[in-house]
Structure formats: C-alpha cells, structure tokens
C-alpha cells in the first residue's frame, strides 16, 4: 500500500530547505528527498516528528489515499464561505 505525503508542499509554503527540515528531525537530507518522492515510508516516530515540526496533525501530512489538489481544496473552501 502506498503512503502519500505533502511534505514538499508544506516545505515550499514555509520556505524551508530539505537540509533544514532534515536537521530539525534528525535525519539525512536525502531521506527527506526520498520521503517526498514516496520512495521511502517513514517510521511512526519520524512522521510524528515532521508533523510536530510543521505544527500540524500527522494526517495533514500523510495519508493512505491520494491528497486532493490544492486548487480543489481552495475552491471548496471558497464555496463554503
């Protein structure tokens, strides 16, 4: 089963480099790259550390289902308002 994540989106949004995130959660910066690309599934501990670093719930970053595109989320939020 594949594990989807939005690490690169959160990282880009906050202007954080791979190395900064890697140093903060105590892994190699290549590991962050492989995580973002979906080549590596993180341990629960690492997933929680990354979520804590961004200050969000772990489900916001990782999901077993594909995340919906940001454009659709924004559109839905606009319609709700």
């Amino acid at each position, binding site marked *: 089963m594949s594990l989807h994540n939005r690490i690169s989106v959160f990282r880009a949004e906050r202007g954080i480099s791979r190395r900064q995130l890697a140093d903060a959660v*105590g*892994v190699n910066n290549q590991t962050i790259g492989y995580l973002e690309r979906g080549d590596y599934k993180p341990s629960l501990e690492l997933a929680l550390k990354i979520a804590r670093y961004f200050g969000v719930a772990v489900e916001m970053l990782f999901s077993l289902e594909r995340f919906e595109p940001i454009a659709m989320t924004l559109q839905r939020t606009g319609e709700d308002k």
Partner: protein
Amino acid sequence: MKPRRKSILSMLDNAVRWTGMPARVADQMSDAPSVDRKNQPRRWSPIWPIAFACILFVLSFIWPSVLLTSLGAVIAGMGASIHVNGPLGKPSLEDDEREAALRKDSLLFCLGLLAALNGLGQPILLIMSQWQNWQTGHGAMVVISALILNATLLGTLPTLYASWSFRRLPKE
C-alpha cells in the same frame, strides 16, 4: 639567475597538491561543501571487481598459480575501497532510519546470496576435485580463489544493492 632547486619535501608537497586531495579535503571540511562526493551510489564500479574475481576463480581451475592469487588479493582490496566510498561506507552509528534499513536489507541480500552460492558451490568443488584428481596444491589454490571471490562479493554486493535501491534525487 639560476632557479633554485626544489627540496624533496616541497616536491612531495607539490605532488600531493597535484592529486587534488588537499583541495577536496578543504572543501569537505568547509561550512558549505560544494558536493558530497563520499558515500554516493556506486552503480557500476562494484561490477568490475566481481567480474575479475569470477574470472580469477574460473582460471584457478585450469591454471592454479600464486600470481593469480596475489592478483585476487588486489581485486578484493579494490572491492573494499569501493565499499568504503559507497553509500554504506560511513559508520553505521551515523545512519538515520532509512540508511539503517537500507544497510540491513543490503547485508541480508548479500549474505543470503553468499549462503546460496556457497551451499551450491561446495559440493560442486568436491565433486570436481575427485573427478579431476586435483593435487593438494591445486585444491588449495582453488579454495583461496573461492575465498577471494567470497571476500569480494561480501565487500561489493551490499554496495551494489544499496546503490540500485534508490533512484538519484534531483538537486534542490
């Protein structure tokens, strides 16, 4: 005016500078190293020592000699140096969880393959030694070549596995 002759020490200094190692070490020790050359995937280089060690092993059946065995030691050394510079070359204490898992998988793959090869190869060697009436010296050379092949595989197979496990990451 006649140019002054260089001392042996300055010539040695120049020779070391010529290799490019001092500049590379200075770059790696700096706060912002340009490229992390060490512990990069080695996708092709481990294949050479494995191929040479296999050829040497086969040659030892027909032409057992001390010269070939010495060459084998050099090949095993080549494999060890590739391992040190490969993705598994750094101390395991520095591994993060992905690297530790990769190291474990690579070693399991290597040891599994070695166990299968040795389990299959030993009876074959035993049958061949009886069939071809090998003398003690001949048998010893074949065994040493097999040991060198084992050492080379042990040094290079994990590096090869780890190097092919992950695709290269694009630069950020």
